C-alpha cells in the first residue's frame, strides 16, 4: 500500500553502542568474571554429549520455532476480531469475547493444555462422527492440542491488547475516512487496523516473547520441542546442570533474536504524521 512511497532516508539508522561504554573498568571486570565462569563451565562440566545430540536439538528447535510462529500468526488473526467486537460489536458478540479473554487470562496455560489434551482428547474417542472424520489421525497426536492451546492463549492476551488499541485510535480519523466516502470495510482495513496495530506493536512484541517462553509447556503433553529434547538428553546422559544451562542459553539467544526483529519491525512501520 503506502509503504513503498515512503522515502528511505526518512529513518536515521540507530546509533551503534559506543565501545567506550563497554570499556569502563567495572564492566570489563564483570565481563572477565563472566568469561572466567564460562571457561570454568566448559572445562569443568561435561559437554561431550553435545555433538551426539546436535541433530535432535536442531529438530526440537525447529518444532519450537514452528509452534511459536504458527500460534502467533493464528492467535493474532483471532485477536483482531476479538478486540474489534469488544469495541464496536453488538453485545451478543462482545460478551462471549470478553468471557473468553477472562477465562484465558484467568487460568494457567499448563491447565489449559492439560484440559485440551487429556480432557478433550479423552472425550473424542466416544464420538463416532469424529472417529470417522479425516481429522481423526491428527487428533490422536499431541501437537494439534499444543498448537490450539498456544493459539487460544495468545489470542486471549492479545485480544485485550487489540481492544485497547482499537479503542485508542482517535475518533476523528475514522470520521474523516467515512467523510471521504470509504465503506465500513475499507475504514477498518485502511485506517483503523493499521493504526491499531501500530499502537499495539510494542505490547505485541512483549507478548510474543512471553509466547516463546510458554512454548516449553507443550513438552508436558509429549510434544517433542526443544525443552523435551533436553529432557531426553538429561535422562540418557544422567547429567543435571549442563543440558539445562545449555537450554537456558538457547532461549536467551532466541529471545534476543525475537526482540531485535521486533525493534527492526517497529522502525520499518511508517510513523509519518504521528
Amino acid at each position, binding site marked *: 500500500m503506502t509503504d513503498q512511497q515512503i522515502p528511505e532516508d526518512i529513518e536515521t539508522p540507530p546509533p551503534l553502542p559506543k565501545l567506550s561504554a563497554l570499556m569502563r573498568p567495572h564492566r570489563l571486570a564483570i565481563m572477565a568474571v563472566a568469561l572466567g565462569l564460562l571457561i570454568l563451565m566448559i572445562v569443568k562440566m561435561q559437554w561431550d554429549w553435545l555433538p551426539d545430540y546436535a541433530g535432535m536439538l536442531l529438530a526440537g528447535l525447529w518444532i519450537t520455532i514452528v509452534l511459536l510462529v504458527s500460534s502467533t500468526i493464528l492467535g493474532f488473526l483471532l485477536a483482531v476480531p476479538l478486540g474489534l467486537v469488544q469495541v464496536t460489536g453488538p453485545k451478543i458478540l462482545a460478551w462471549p469475547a470478553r468471557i473468553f479473554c*477472562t477465562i484465558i487470562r484467568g487460568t*494457567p496455560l499448563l491447565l489449559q493444555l*492439560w484440559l485440551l489434551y487429556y480432557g*478433550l482428547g479423552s472425550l473424542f474417542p466416544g464420538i463416532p462422527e469424529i472417529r470417522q472424520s479425516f481429522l481423526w489421525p491428527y487428533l490422536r497426536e499431541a501437537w494439534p492440542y499444543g498448537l490450539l492451546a498456544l493459539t487460544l492463549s495468545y489470542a486471549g492476551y492479545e485480544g485485550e491488547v487489540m481492544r485497547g488499541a482499537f479503542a485508542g485510535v482517535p475518533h476523528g480519523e475514522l470520521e474523516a475516512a467515512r467523510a471521504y466516502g470509504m465503506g465500513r470495510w475499507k475504514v477498518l482495513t485502511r485506517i483503523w487496523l493499521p493504526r491499531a496495530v501500530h499502537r499495539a506493536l510494542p505490547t505485541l512484541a512483549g507478548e510474543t516473547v512471553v509466547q516463546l517462553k510458554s512454548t516449553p509447556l507443550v513438552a508436558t503433553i509429549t510434544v517433542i520441542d526443544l525443552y523435551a529434547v533436553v529432557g531426553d538428553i538429561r535422562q540418557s546422559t544422567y547429567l*543435571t546442570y549442563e543440558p539445562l544451562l545449555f537450554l537456558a542459553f538457547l532461549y536467551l539467544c532466541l529471545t534476543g533474536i525475537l526482540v531485535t526483529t521486533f525493534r527492526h519491525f517497529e522502525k520499518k512501520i511508517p510513523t509519518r504524521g504521528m
Partner: protein
Amino acid sequence: MNWELLALSPPGWGGALLRGLVTSLQVAAGGFALGQVIGILGSAGKLYGGPVIRDLMEIYTTVVRAIPELVLIVLLYYAGTAALNNLMGAVGFSSVDISGMLAGILVIGLVQGAYSTEVLRGAILAIPPGQIEAARAYGMPPAMVMRRITLPAMLPHAIPGLANLWLVTTKDTALLAVVGFTELTLATRQAAGVTHEYFLFFSAAGVLYLAVTLVSNVALQFLERRASRGMARQRT
C-alpha cells in the same frame, strides 16, 4: 458427568483439590512477598546504586526475563537445591532438607523479583522529583525519604503492574506441577488420572483458578482506589 466425584469427603476429590488450591495460594503469596522484597532492593539498586550494582541488576533482570519460567523453575528447583546443599557441605554444615514448599517459594520469588524490579523502577521514576526534593529540604535522611515519601508515592503507579504480577504468580505456581510439587494442577491431574474423568477435573480446577483471579481483581481494584486517594486522575 459424575458430579459426585467433586464431593469434599474421600470418595470425592473436592477436598484434595481444595488442599491443592491452598498450597498454590501459600506458594503464590510467599513467592510474591519475596519477589517484592527483591524488587524493592533491585529497583533501589538500579536507581541509586553505583555502576557495578546497576550493571549486575541489569544482568539479573535481563537473564531472568529472557528464559522461560519453566526452564528457570526446573533449573533452580533441581540444580539450586543441590548447589545449596553442596555449599552447606563445603562450609561444614550438615545438608539441609529443603521442603518443596520452600523451594517453590524461593524459585517463584526469584523469578517475580526480576519483573517486580522493573515495575517498581518505573513507578519510582514516575514520582514528581519535587516531592523528594521537598523531603530532602525538610532534612529527612535517605532511609526516611524512602519509607515516608518514595514508597507511598510510587504505590499508585506501581499497583496496576504489581496486580498483574500477582495474577501471573498465582498462575506460575501451576508450573511447580512439572517438578512434582503437589499444588492445584498436579492434585487435579492425580484426581483425573485415578478416576479417568479428565475433562471434569481440569474444568473444575479452571473454575478455581478463575475464582482466585476474580476475587483478586475485586481486592486489587479496592487497593488501587485506596492508594490513589488524593491523586489527580490521569486517564479517563
